[in-house]
Structures are given as structure tokens and as C-alpha cells.
């Protein structure tokens, strides 16, 4: 029962978050906060040729928010900005509209582990924290380059 929510891949990313830390000269740096539970993260990335060249994050929070963030950084490194935005929207759609994990784009395969969180509306916000922060960062970048 509990194990189908807390899949091993979630716990692995929680214990060993990928792309942790800070970038020396990020092009975009954004803070995301979930005021309900106090989870917070700082996301930063560099942009080269309209792609996310490097991406890192720091933060603290529950296993759902932290693993989602960790998986996101892995999925997006090297991705075009437009594609990143599309992936973020696809993931949000799956989580918010009770979509099926198998409909997720291939690049987000690992993130299908978070499908079980759908059943916990309060926790969906945790899973989306990193992605909403990313979308905010992409908007900031668009503003900068206008």
C-alpha cells in the first residue's frame, strides 16, 4: 500500500538528489516556496543556444518535492527551452488532471513514479514545486531576452 506511493526511485532521488548545489554564473536563478509546508528550493540554470546547458538546485522539503526536483534536473539538462516548457506543462497536466503516467513524454519516464501522488491533492503541490519554479525561471529568461 505505502510502497506504491513511495517507490524506490523516489526514495533514491530523495536520498541522493542529482544536480545539487549552485552554479557559478547562472543565467537564471529563481526561488520556489510552498508556503503550506515550508518547502523551498532555489533553481538555477545556464542557457546556451536556446538550451538548458546546466541546471542545479538546492533546497529542503519532503521526499516528494525533493525527488521531483532531482528528477526534473536530470530530465531537462541539455533540453531546448521550448521543449523544457512543454515537458513541464505535460507533467503538470498529468498530475493535476489525473492523467495516465504512460502518456508522459519519454523524457519524463522516471517521473511516472510520482503518479501515485495524484491521489493526495495536498501532496501534488509538493510534486509540482520544482516545475512551477522552472516555469517561473523560463518566463524570467524570456523577459531578459526580449
Amino acid at each position, binding site marked *: *500500500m*505505502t*510502497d506504491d*506511493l*513511495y517507490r524506490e526511485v523516489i*526514495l533514491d532521488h*530523495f*536520498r541522493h538528489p542529482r544536480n545539487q548545489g549552485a552554479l557559478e554564473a547562472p543565467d537564471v536563478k529563481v526561488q520556489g516556496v510552498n508556503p*503550506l*509546508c*515550508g*518547502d523551498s528550493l532555489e533553481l538555477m540554470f545556464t542557457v546556451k543556444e536556446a538550451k538548458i546547458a546546466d541546471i542545479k538546485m538546492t533546497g*529542503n*522539503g*519532503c*521526499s*516528494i518535492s525533493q525527488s521531483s526536483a532531482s528528477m526534473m534536473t536530470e530530465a531537462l539538462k541539455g533540453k531546448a527551452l521550448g521543449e523544457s516548457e512543454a515537458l513541464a506543462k505535460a507533467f503538470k497536466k498529468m498530475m493535476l488532471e489525473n492523467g495516465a503516467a504512460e502518456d508522459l513524454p519519454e523524457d519524463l519516464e522516471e517521473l511516472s513514479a510520482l503518479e501515485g501522488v495524484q491521489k*493526495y491533492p*495536498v*501532496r501534488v503541490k*509538493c510534486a509540482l514545486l520544482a516545475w512551477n519554479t522552472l516555469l517561473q525561471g523560463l518566463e524570467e529568461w524570456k523577459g531578459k531576452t526580449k
Partner: protein
Amino acid sequence: MTALNPDRLRLDFPILSRKIHGKPLVYLDNAATTQKPMSVIMSMTAYYERTNANVHRGVHTLSQEATSLMEQSRDKVAAFIGAPDPATVIFTRNATESINLVAYSWARKNLKPGDEILLTEMEHHSNLIPWQMAAQATGAVLRFIPVTGWDGFLDLSRLDGLLTPRTKLLAVTQMSNVLGTINPVTELARRAHAVGAKVLVDGAQSAPHLAVDVKTLGADFFAFSAHKMLGPTGLGVLWAPRALLETMEPFLGGGDMISQVWPDRATWNELPYKFEAGTPNITGAIAFGAAIDYLNQVGMDNIRAHEQDITGYALGTLKDRFPKIVLHGPADVAQRGGVVSFELPGVHPHDIGTILDREGVAVRAGHHCCQVLMKKFGVAGTARASFYLYNTRAEVDALVASLGQVERLFVPSVR
């Protein structure tokens, strides 16, 4: 063993036989709200089926019966808190509204720039934000009695410096909803009165669990909520002495709170109606009467003894089974209520809350509307189990077993 048999009382609460994710519900979120016995639920149904009418204005039979039922409830509430005069029991929506009533009708009239409102660092947002707003409106300043640490006591050594002739109000919780600490409100009130301050006691956590007598408590204002003591949501109480209430202007204007009305002015109704504008929560008030009957039948002293027993058992068992667990609040059950906040190092409280829910165990996880306290201790939140008269030692065992699931999943982090 105590005189209270929780296994028998549980039969009165239909919801307690529910299953959650296939497991028996273990309801340990009583500091947030409590479950309702059949008698309370039935009182609402019976009222709507047989008596429903508006109160105080009608001359017809139903209206008179409804009025009389509601006023009987007021009498029961008054007796429950030892108030000699039922007209000093004001029905509100909840403890929060009761406190806001004081913040508007008393504080905004009586505070001026430089005056001080003394609070504590363990106040619930409901006993903090109304004072922030009142301070903003009047130029008064907020001061705080510090909390010594996770052991949960107010640092009374600071009281002499904090209580001065500038202090016009002390607003303090009788029992912390995070730490469980029972504060020495009578002593605090004595000290506050000595400098001429009024005293508001937030009884949202204490009135359900301790015998309260406003004659000896020392409070000038006492606020609490029905839903945390077997009653319905949407009903709260403010008590204050008649002489004080008489000096206060109404909080909300409308029907029922007036005596005479002209196009440009009005005079106010007598107590308590002056503070009860509009059609009140009649059903809620009547059901609260049924809840108080139930509590009286069990006996507040028995409830307190049972909760001390179960809290002591929980503290001991949790510490034995999880040596690394961090338990907050006083270690001595004589100084605390049945609220146990805890942290498992390396595990976020929301993960604890979700995993426990999968095992049928309902606890609260988060900041518990006490962000000031959480910030002081540098944590985002805690997990909290809180008990009431129907909880059993077996349920504490279920809590411990489900925390075993948390440990199993997060073992590399807990280790």
C-alpha cells in the same frame, strides 16, 4: 486504570468504525478537530426535523421552542465554564472570531500608540494575527514572552521586564496546540492585572480537555471552539464579565443586535445579543449543548486522567521504539495535555503524515498555525498526534507500528 473506558465510549462515535485504505481509522488529530458522538449528530437532525425556526423574533410555537433550546445550550455552556451569568456567554463562529471580537470591540477602542500587547511565542495564528492587525490600527506594539526551548515552557524570568504600565493586554493560550504545554494562566493573569492589563485566555485547546472555571481562572476574556470538544463546526464562544462587555461597542451590526432603530442611528440590544448580529448558528448552539452533556456525563476530571495516561504511554513507547525521535513539549504529563509533536530526523513531517495515512492513522503534519514557534526552532514543521477521550493505548500501538513503516522506507536517512 482510570474511570473512563474508551472502548465503550468509541461505540458512541459512528466515524470511528470507518476504515481508511482498508485499515481501521486511528484518529489522532483531535487538536485540529474532534469527532462527534451520536447524541450530537442526532440533536442537529432532531432540531431540523422537529423544531427548525428562527430565534428571538417569532411569536409562533416553533420559534419559541428554538429560542428556548438555544438558550438552554447557553446555560449549559455557562455552567460548563463556571460563568454565573449566561448572558456573558457570547456565541461566535469559532475561537478565532471570539478573539477578533475582542480585537475590534475592545482593543481598537482602548489602545493608543505606544501601548503594548503581550503575547507568547507559542500562540496559534488565531491569537497572533488579530493583535498584529489591532496593533497596526492603533499604533500599539506587540511583545512576546519567549519559549525556553522544545521543552515548551514560557520563560517567566522575563516577565518582570515585559509586564509594564504600558502593557494593556496579555493574550495567552492556556494550552499549546504544538507543545501541549499547560501555561500557568492564573499566575500570569495575576501579574498582568497588577500592572493594570486585561487578560485574554485562548481556551481552544484547554476547554475540551481541562475543567475550566472562569471565576478562578483570572481571565477577562475566554475564547474557545465547540468543534474541538465534540461539538459542531461553526460555533465558538467568547466569555467576559458583564461589566467589561457592557463597556464594549458591538463587533458586527445587523439584525438581533439592536434595540431601537432610526434611519440614522440605533441603540444596542442587551447582552449577549449585542454581540450576536444576524441569525446565529442555532443548530450549532443546540448541538454544542448536547456535546457538553456528553462531556459532563464522562466527567472532565476523568477525561484529563485518561489523557494523561495515554500521553504518558505514547511518550514512553515512542522513545523506546525510536531512540532518535525528537519529542517536543514538557516531559511531565502533569504539565501538558494530550498533544505530542515529534520529529524523526531526516524525514519530512509531510512524508510521515502521508505514510501514516496509508496505514489508517490520521495525524497532523506541518506548522500547526504556529509559524513563529517553527521559525524560532528553525523547522518547517512537525508531526503531531493529539488524543481525546475515545483514544486507546492500542491506537498508540498502531501509531508506533505505522511509524515503523516510515522508518523502514526512510531507514538510510533515519540511520
